[in-house]
């Protein structure tokens, strides 16, 4: 933030004046506040969660009975492709990003992220990228090649039209958003920690954000390259995956899964971070084995790079490769197991409070363990030869991504909701939604295990009557609608609780980490005074200093209040002013990506917007009023 003010500073002429007011639409379009950006990430990705859920329900309706014809085969292909792509790239990743944005600066005692405008850029590029991908529905058909887009099925010869190109362009634009956010959070966590907050005192959620960000920054470029190659094949007639010219479609699988497997950990590590915050808070105990959990996360993030070919056991890589990838894949079960045992040990002997957030976290442990164990069964390449491309695999990844990531995300929503808004969600409705989701989830994905082992293949739009799969599929469809009901109950909960506005206060859970030491919702500058940190769970030990002396009996809570921000002279706190350039660059990038498919004129317009935005960005002062001399 070295804004050395220069009298001669060049500035681009402004088309619109720089927004100043902290209210209204302009404020939301130009905000650089990490909390507002987190809120927008959350709202937009929750919208896509509903869309992806509707796509899932349509799939389940089609499969609910044998030989039904609710969806045509072509629409069915589009539906499962967009369901997978939406849930991975438009739901779990950005919902995690919503938590990164909201929570990480608060947990490390910072006023904002390291690069607030870059953060806004990530948000807008994500929003426009998500729209770009979904425009395809109205532009001749959505992508239909599965979320992994294997050529030659995704090559032009078998897949004319723009669906697949929309998919690639959308992914590449979203990749820009993810990489920008990943860079930002790495620098924020490494460089913006409050005094005394060493790396090994960081809350586990912040640690997992750091590891996830490193994975994003290293894995997404690989997807970008794969996308560029496939686009070049489709639009410019290159030969990367064209076997007639000697190209190798299997090479796509290698690149895609070299990205795709770290991506799996990008989806689950933030969830593990959320659970590692919730369990200690509601067990009123420190997290068991903090160091082990952090290092297990690091080991998972590292070993995730050496397992990609387990997605390709049946393509014929040979026994040596299959054996090697079997071993590396099974080894990942070790750090994962370390985490699960640490979470269970955190519960052990604690004074457990079974509220909605805690129930979702405990549900996470159970469901993720089931999903992890079925994962080990197809880590073994001989057994995977039976399971590849069956519903058993569908069951597995829904147990880790829905029973894992989504359960943890709901746990995080209920846990941090009072921090986001200042009021509490209703517990009765919350527990109802948990029970519905738990039952619906297991009813939907449990039977997929046996119907898959019985041979039902993935991605078929229907099946014959006499296969013996009907009752399982009907159960799964009913389960899907119970999940939908649970999400509905959650939405009703939000609406009713908003009416009641039960005041939460700064620290409703008597929690442990720094975000609870300030008001809810936090003032825009977060901390009146940057905290000084002496311990892991510093806020907890400020409240209960006797625990540090080994005294476990008759603990008295110290009278320590959350920071009072009512009498703060805000003119002394300097935060960056609003900027609409991130929005401009986001729109420009998306227009350019659209132009790749239609006309170079659009590419030129988009790039001019990006260029204009970049120059404007780098020449506008961070603060308009920073002319005073330091």
């Amino acid at each position, binding site marked *: *933030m*070295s*804004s*050395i003010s*220069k009298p*001669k*500073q*060049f500035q681009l002429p402004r088309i619109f004046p720089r927004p100043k007011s902290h209210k209204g639409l302009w404020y939301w379009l130009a905000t650089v506040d990490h909390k507002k950006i987190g809120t927008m990430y959350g709202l937009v990705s929750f919208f896509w969660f509903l869309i992806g859920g509707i796509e899932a329900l349509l799939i389940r309706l089609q499969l609910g009975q044998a030989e039904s014809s609710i969806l045509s085969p072509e629409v069915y292909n589009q539906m499962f492709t967009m369901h997978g792509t939406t849930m991975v790239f438009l739901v779990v990743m950005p919902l995690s990003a919503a938590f990164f944005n909201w929570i990480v600066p608060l947990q*490390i*005692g*910072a*006023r904002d992220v*390291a*690069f607030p405008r870059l953060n806004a850029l990530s948000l807008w590029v994500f929003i426009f990228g998500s729209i770009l991908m979904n425009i395809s529905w109205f532009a001749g058909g959505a992508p239909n090649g599965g979320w992994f887009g294997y050529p030659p099925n995704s090559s032009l010869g078998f897949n004319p039209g723009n669906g697949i190109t929309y998919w690639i362009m959308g992914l590449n634009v979203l990749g820009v958003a993810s*990489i920008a956010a990943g*860079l*930002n959070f*790495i*620098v924020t966590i*490494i*460089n*913006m*920690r*409050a*005094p005394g*907050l060493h790396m090994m005192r960081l809350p586990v959620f912040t640690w997992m954000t750091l590891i996830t960000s490193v994975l994003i*920054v*290293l*894995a997404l*470029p*690989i997807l*970008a*390259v*794969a996308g*560029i190659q496939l686009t*070049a094949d489709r639009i*410019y*007639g*290159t*030969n*990367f995956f064209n076997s007639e*010219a*000697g*190209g*190798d479609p299997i*090479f796509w699988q290698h*690149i895609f899964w*070299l990205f795709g497997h770290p991506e799996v950990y990008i989806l689950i590590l933030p969830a593990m971070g959320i659970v590692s915050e919730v369990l200690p808070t509601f067990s009123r105990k420190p997290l068991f084995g903090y160091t082990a959990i952090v290092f297990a996360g690091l080991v998972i993030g590292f070993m995730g790079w050496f397992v990609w070919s387990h997605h390709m056991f049946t393509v014929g890589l040979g026994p040596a490769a299959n054996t090697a990838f079997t071993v590396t894949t099974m080894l990942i079960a070790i750090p994962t197991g370390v985490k699960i045992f640490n979470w269970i040990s955190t519960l052990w002997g604690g004074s457990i409070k079974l509220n909605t957030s805690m129930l979702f976290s405990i549900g996470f442990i159970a469901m993720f363990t089931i999903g992890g164990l079925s994962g080990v069964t197809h880590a073994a390449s001989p057994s995977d030869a039976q399971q590849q491309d069956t519903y058993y695999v569908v069951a597995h990844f829904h147990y880790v991504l829905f029973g894992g990531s989504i359960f943890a995300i709901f746990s995080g929503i209920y846990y941090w909701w009072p921090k986001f808004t200042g009021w509490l969600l209703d517990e009765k409705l919350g527990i109802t939604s948990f029970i519905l989701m738990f039952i619906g989830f297991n009813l939907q994905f449990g039977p997929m295990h046996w119907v898959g082992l019985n041979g039902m293949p993935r991605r078929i739009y229907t099946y014959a009557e006499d296969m013996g799969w009907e009752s399982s599929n009907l159960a799964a469809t009913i389960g899907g609608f119970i999940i939908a009901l649970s999400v509905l109950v959650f939405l009703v909960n939000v609406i009713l609780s908003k009416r009641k506005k039960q005041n939460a206060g700064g620290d409703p859970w008597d929690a442990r980490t720094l975000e609870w030491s300030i008001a809810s919702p936090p003032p825009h500058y977060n901390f*009146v*005074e*940057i*905290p*000084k940190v002496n311990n892991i769970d510093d806020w907890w030990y400020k409240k209960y200093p006797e625990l540090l002396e080994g005294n476990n009996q008759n603990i008295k809570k110290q009278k320590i209040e959350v920071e009072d921000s009512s009498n703060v002279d805000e003119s*002394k*706190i*300097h935060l960056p002013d609003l900027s609409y350039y991130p929005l401009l660059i986001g729109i420009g990038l998306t227009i350019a990506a659209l132009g790749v498919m239609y006309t170079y004129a659009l590419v030129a317009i988009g790039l001019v917007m990006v260029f204009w935005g970049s*120059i404007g960005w*780098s020449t506008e002062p961070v603060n308009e009023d*920073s002319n005073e001399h*330091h």
Partner: protein
Amino acid sequence: MSTDVTIQHGEEINNSTGVSAKKLLMWVFLGSDVMFFGTFIATFMAYRNKSLVGPYPEDTLNIPITSVSTFVLLMSSLGIVLALHYLKEARMGLAKFWLLMVIIMGIGFIGFQVYEFAHFANMGMTPQVNLFGSTFFTLTSLHGAHVSLGILWLIFLLINEYRGNLNSENAIDLEIAGLYWHFVDIVWIVIFALLYLITANDGVPPGGIPWIGGH
């Protein structure tokens, strides 16, 4: 509570490592870019000697010419070191001169690349013709795009030097651009070694059709 941490404007931002956040950002970004180029280079190596029709590397690559353009690009790295050195010492005349030289050398490198691409296209080597063309053109043109972006960035900084906005106090802005510039040079060293030097004598692979040249 703490007494030494107070809110003073401009000073309240934490800096845990002592490294400027902007510089750290550039380092992490370069790590990300390594994966980007790494995947393209891996693609090139995986498809080396897999083209079924010509022209093949031995028919096209011209090592002497590319050696000259490589030399120009590597010298520009020396130039940006000097430009930064004189900027830090506030000797603005030399700082501007060397920055200008870097920009000229960068444009020179791009000029060589444009000539090379046009020459190859004339010979009938295009991204569409075979795997060598596809992998060669994507990798080198994306490297060229990186160099071009760097040139735009350096021009922007040079203008700021002339306007007096970039001086010894905020020399870090040039240092960060220098990190990027050096990285792009290092990537070129890898590309020159793998795509040109060791590939130069690759002829017709087993199963390939010999190239008879021309159109």
